[in-house]
């Protein structure tokens, strides 16, 4: 479906000099520095999946999306979307993909949303039944009609995002690429987007590729994660599996024992060596334990035995912590290789 093979993208950033003379000089000089934004990335994304494309900051996520959408050409390697190299057949590829680029609007800035949609319908040659069906769907889910005749530039961010997402799905694309859509702002919108994606996925088998910093957005939209670090896939699978790979877990509890909060922490740390216990707001105790040494069964059994528990829950591991841990391990491994050599 989507294949990247040893994908490399280097940018030549011209050494810009200030002032008019300087900018004229950049026209004629060849001085620039090379920045490698994507460094030998390989992966495959199966058809019909909803994948969060995750990488460390500056891992070239947006640049990779730009290559997959045909906006830029790789410096080396290749990528294919549905069998074609997007940058070689940009317009052909554009017909079968939908794109949202976060803060940057894809819509006609001076036109109303309905007018923008009418133009998109012509540009993508959307058949009448498809267009009508999708408009009806957006009317129900995104309340597009409420945007009325206001020009896109005057819409609020939430309203605009609604229109952007609808526009990216209007022509029933086989793949949608959402690069940092700022849907995290609005719970209602998030729910609507999830519904929309599920619908497209169910009815048309649409493949979704999302990059986001917002873990909640990722969790809401995606079922699988593709984690890339230094060009290598370090995790590909469900988001649950990714979270399960966390090496530290946590339990929070309230108790009715007549002891000081600090004393409760001391009891936990003495009874389970290697565990960190801290008091959080309201006297609640936060227990943080390494998943490699303790099972959750053992931790919970200990707590049940020693405390008169009033409340107890185990939060999901923080995705960012998990990622930090993955990148950290790889960095350590890399350092060991250097030492061994």
């Amino acid at each position, binding site marked *: 479906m989507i294949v990247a093979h040893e994908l490399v993208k280097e*940018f*030549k*950033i*011209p050494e*810009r000099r200030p002032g*008019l003379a300087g*900018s*004229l000089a*950049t*026209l004629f000089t060849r001085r620039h520095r090379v*920045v490698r*934004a994507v460094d030998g990335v390989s992966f495959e994304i199966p058809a019909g999946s909803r994948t969060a494309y995750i990488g460390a900051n500056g891992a070239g996520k947006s*640049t990779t999306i*730009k290559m997959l*959408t*045909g*906006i*830029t*050409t790789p410096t080396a390697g290749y990528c294919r979307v549905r069998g074609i190299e997007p940058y070689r057949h*940009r*317009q*052909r590829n*554009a*017909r079968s*993909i939908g*794109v949202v*680029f976060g803060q*940057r*609007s*894809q819509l*006609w*800035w*001076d*036109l109303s949303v309905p*007018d923008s949609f*009418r*133009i998109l319908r*012509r*540009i*993508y040659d959307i058949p009448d039944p498809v267009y009508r069906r999708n408009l009806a769907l957006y009317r129900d889910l995104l309340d597009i009609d409420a945007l009325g*005749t206001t020009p896109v530039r005057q819409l609020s961010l939430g309203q605009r995002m609604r229109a952007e997402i609808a526009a990216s799905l209007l022509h029933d694309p086989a793949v949608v690429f959402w690069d940092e859509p700022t849907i995290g702002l609005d719970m209602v919108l998030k729910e609507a987007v999830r519904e929309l994606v599920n619908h497209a996925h169910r009815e048309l088998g649409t493949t979704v590729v999302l990059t986001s910093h917002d873990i909640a957005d990722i969790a809401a939209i995606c079922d699988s994660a593709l984690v890339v670090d230094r060009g290598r896939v370090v995790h590909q699978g469900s988001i649950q599996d990714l979270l399960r790979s966390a090496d530290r877990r946590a339990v929070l509890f309230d108790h009715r024992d007549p002891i000081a909060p600090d004393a409760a922490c001391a009891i936990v740390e003495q009874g389970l060596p290697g565990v960190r216990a801290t008091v959080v707001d309201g006297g609640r105790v936060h227990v943080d334990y390494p998943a490699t040494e303790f099972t959750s069964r053992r931790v919970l059994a200990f707590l049940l035995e020693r405390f008169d528990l009033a409340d107890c829950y185990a939060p999901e591991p923080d995705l960012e912590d998990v990622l930090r841990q993955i990148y950290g391990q790889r960095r350590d491994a890399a350092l060991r290789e250097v030492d061994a050599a």
Partner: protein
Amino acid sequence: MSAWSTAARYARLSWFLGGVGLHRLTAYRLDFLLGAGAFLVRVGVQTAVVGLVFRQVPVVGGWSYHEVVFLLGFSLLPRGLDHLFTDQLWELSRKLVQRGEFYRHLVRPVSPLFSLLSERFLHPDGFGELIVGAALVGWSGSHLDLDLTATQWALAPLFVLCGALIHSAVKLLFASLSFWTVTSLPAMYAANQVSEFTSYPLDIYHPTLRALLTWVLPFAFTSYVPCTYLLTGDTGLVVWLPVVTAGAVALALAVWRRGLTIHDTTGS
């Protein structure tokens, strides 16, 4: 897709976008009227200045009052026609590359240039220029007892079209410089200021300026050259018009294409 069906598709899209543009015109009637009114005042002042000039002397640089008004009006026609379709190039020059907004034109299944221009089809100010220009040409033409030959009648619309293409080409070239310099507004503005010289007969200018306007930034071919031919039948320079137009358009498109590849390698 064959060349013909591609051309037909773009023609259909343009027709449709024209409809959207006209629709918007009615939606923003007041803005349109204010813009058109302001334009009318501007051209009115320009015409008044010409009138006051000719209160002092009967002939300026070999041109009579009505001839100069004819030239002034005619110069608005290609400018207005160009204005209708390519106003969005100012946005490219001003900020699209700088703010990284250009690549929305690279994800649509149409040519990036068409996508860019589609954002503002049928700019209302263009209509103002065309209407005022046509009125001035008609008024001065009737005072001059202008009797055009059949050939001149047939060529006149082509002159306007070629003039508009020259305006568009110069704009495209200077707007494309922004792919290298991030913003090229000063350069584009400068070129636009130079085009203002064409509202008056070139004969009054310094020969260097005249040469610049004829062969470097060929704005002379948008009004002075065709007007000389229409008013006097002198074919001296007008035969160069198709060549200059084709050359300007080809050069601008080449710079634009080169700019796209630069955009690809710099990432902006």
